[in-house]
């Protein structure tokens, strides 16, 4: 009887292996930023339908992604905070921007619709510094003469984990508020003066949705998916802009990718009448030499496919796909990802 079970089990395993072998599916793993998680998840689903290869992406925050890829526990890392060229050298990594999105402040007020409230960079900085504590503060009233603001305390929600979203948000606040720059600074993890910390973009979205009178900052796809009330912002040119593909694209237009080493570009507070002030690119980190070459090659195939066919899906979620000339520049840098034979792995990718 045991031998029958054994034989049947071995037969099933063999059949499974043959099926997998026939599909030539290689599973890749990634970890990092929660910022692009909605679009990566969509791409992974579509890619699996097309090619059978699965992507397992753990949305643990940019800090976590950087740590995991440095330890080589995943195939690729994702971070909204780009690494500087020295760090890339030290870690043996290449990095490139995969998609661009916008960070929006979201508030929770009963009866307020998206875009009803307008805030400026200075005001947001003061709120997050704890200097503005009530919703009916004169500074907020000045920007919103017609809005009905309750005399309720402001509940600040920020990130508790190492986050590229935080990096871009605090980078923006440091640019518009010298007070913020000296007291707190810009980084993936800062000493927040006030507020409660939540894990991931998802955590901040949840906390804001559940807490009356709160304000937080999330990537725009999260605001849309969780039906949160976003605010309008006043950009560098003094114009009031609303978060949308248009305003993100206007901000991204000024980026000089060709001359940025390691594609290190921060897109906050960009000039332009239509620019959204807190736009950010999110980056992929790939080791120059990986132990699992098949997975690394498959990862390059996946990102190549995303550049070629993923644009529409990205736009549906209000992410901006990278423009074609930049994609060409990016693909040139992929030749430095080599296999153990010294040949670039990208030669194995299908021409797209």
């Amino acid at each position, binding site marked *: 009887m045991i031998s029958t079970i054994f034989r049947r089990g071995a037969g099933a395993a063999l059949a499974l292996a043959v099926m997998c072998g026939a599909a030539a599916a290689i599973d890749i793993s990634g970890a990092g930023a929660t910022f692009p998680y909605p679009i990566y998840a969509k791409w992974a689903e579509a890619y699996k339908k097309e090619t059978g290869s699965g992507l397992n992406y753990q949305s643990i*925050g940019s800090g976590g992604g950087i740590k995991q890829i440095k330890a080589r526990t995943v195939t690729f890392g994702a971070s909204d905070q780009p690494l500087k060229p020295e760090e890339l050298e030290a870690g043996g990594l290449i990095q490139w921007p995969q998609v661009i999105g916008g960070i929006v402040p979201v508030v929770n007020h009963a009866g307020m619709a998206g875009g009803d409230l307008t805030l400026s960079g200075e005001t947001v900085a003061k709120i997050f510094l704890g200097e503005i504590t009530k919703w009916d503060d004169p500074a907020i009233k000045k920007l919103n003469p017609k809005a009905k603001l309750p005399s309720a305390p402001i509940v600040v929600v920020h990130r508790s984990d190492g986050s590229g979203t935080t990096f871009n948000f605090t980078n923006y606040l440091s640019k518009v508020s010298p007070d913020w720059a000296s007291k707190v600074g810009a980084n993936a993890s800062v000493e927040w003066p006030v507020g409660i910390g939540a894990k991931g973009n998802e955590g901040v979205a949840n906390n804001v949705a559940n807490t009356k009178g709160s304000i937080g900052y999330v990537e725009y796809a999260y605001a849309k998916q969780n039906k949160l009330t976003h605010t309008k912002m006043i950009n560098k040119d003094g114009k009031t802009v609303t978060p949308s593909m248009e305003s993100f694209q206007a901000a991204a237009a000024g980026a000089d990718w060709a001359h940025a080493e390691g594609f290190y570009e921060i897109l906050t507070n960009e000039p332009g009448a239509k620019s959204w002030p807190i736009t950010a690119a999110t980056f992929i980190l790939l080791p120059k030499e990986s132990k699992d070459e098949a997975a690394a090659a498959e990862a390059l195939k996946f990102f190549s496919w995303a550049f070629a066919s993923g644009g529409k899906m990205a736009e549906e979620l209000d992410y901006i796909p990278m423009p074609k000339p930049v994609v060409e520049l990016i693909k040139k840098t992929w030749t430095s990802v080599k296999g153990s034979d010294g040949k670039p792995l990208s030669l194995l990718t299908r021409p797209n």
Partner: protein
Amino acid sequence: MFSIEPSRRSANGAGGEAGSDMSEVVLQQAASLSVAADRTRVLGRLALVDRLFRQVTRAAAVIVLVILGGVIVSLVYGSWPAMKAFGFGFLFSQSWNPVTENFGALPAIYGTVMTSIIAMLIAVPVGLGIAIFLTELCPYVLRRPIGTAIELLAGIPSIIYGIWGLFVLAPFLQSHVQPALIAAFGDIPVFSTLFAGPPYGIGMLTAGFILAIMVLPFIASISRDVFETVPLVLKEAAWGIGATTWEVTRYVVIPYTRVGVIGGVMLGLGRALGETMAVTFVIGNAHKISGSLLAPGTTISATIANEFTEAVGDLYTSALIELGLILFFITFVVLAVARYMLMRIEQKSA
């Protein structure tokens, strides 16, 4: 006299009454062979089994000690860089800045201790009340169901408590309870700072509530078990001279079961100190010490849970491990104090 026919009884494993069966069988067989040498051989085998049993159990006990020692050694080894960098100041520093790599444990220690104290203040009276109700006042029909319900509370995974706390309890507290507390204590001098601040919903008080609910089953069921060991004679004697139910509970039951009740409370406290997932959801993750119970804070386990996966750099990781070592130490101290108290009580009563 031994029987000469071979016995058919099958020999079970060593130990217990089956062992005496086996010895009997073996001794019967020995009688039919040459007596002396075989007798020594057989007795030697019995002694061997006995020795093996003793060694295996000793090894099990030693393994536990070795594991404990190993945990302590690896905690100390892991936190060595942080201990070298910060020294004792780590225990008293309030800053937690991963960028400048300046870490301090005080907010986490304060949060751990405060949430546990709040949990105990709520859970001990309620738990004892449940135990007294179940043993003295409850109709017999309801005793099993209520007892089972209390024990089911202990079986709920802690992360479910966290999710329930975040999605159900926190909004409820934020809209109804916390504004009432802030308004009620607004003018009273000490309490106004204790209950100050915007109603976040989550925070130290909420975490304390949830810990109290998690710790309640331990205190209630251990107290109930211990209360049931009170000899009926003692209680009947008290009732016989006219004591009321309350007086019996206060003067007979509780003094008799002091030791067990304190043991149960200490078990609950140990769980409250180390609880991670439920607290992480509702504590608010702010590395600050605030005078207000309604403010967000952090605990040692919540800090480690939140930041371990992304602690880049040796000093950051080492600081987190040192937090773990501090928690280990706090738990150890609490247990030692409990043991000492129990020892004193037993000495006094002896």
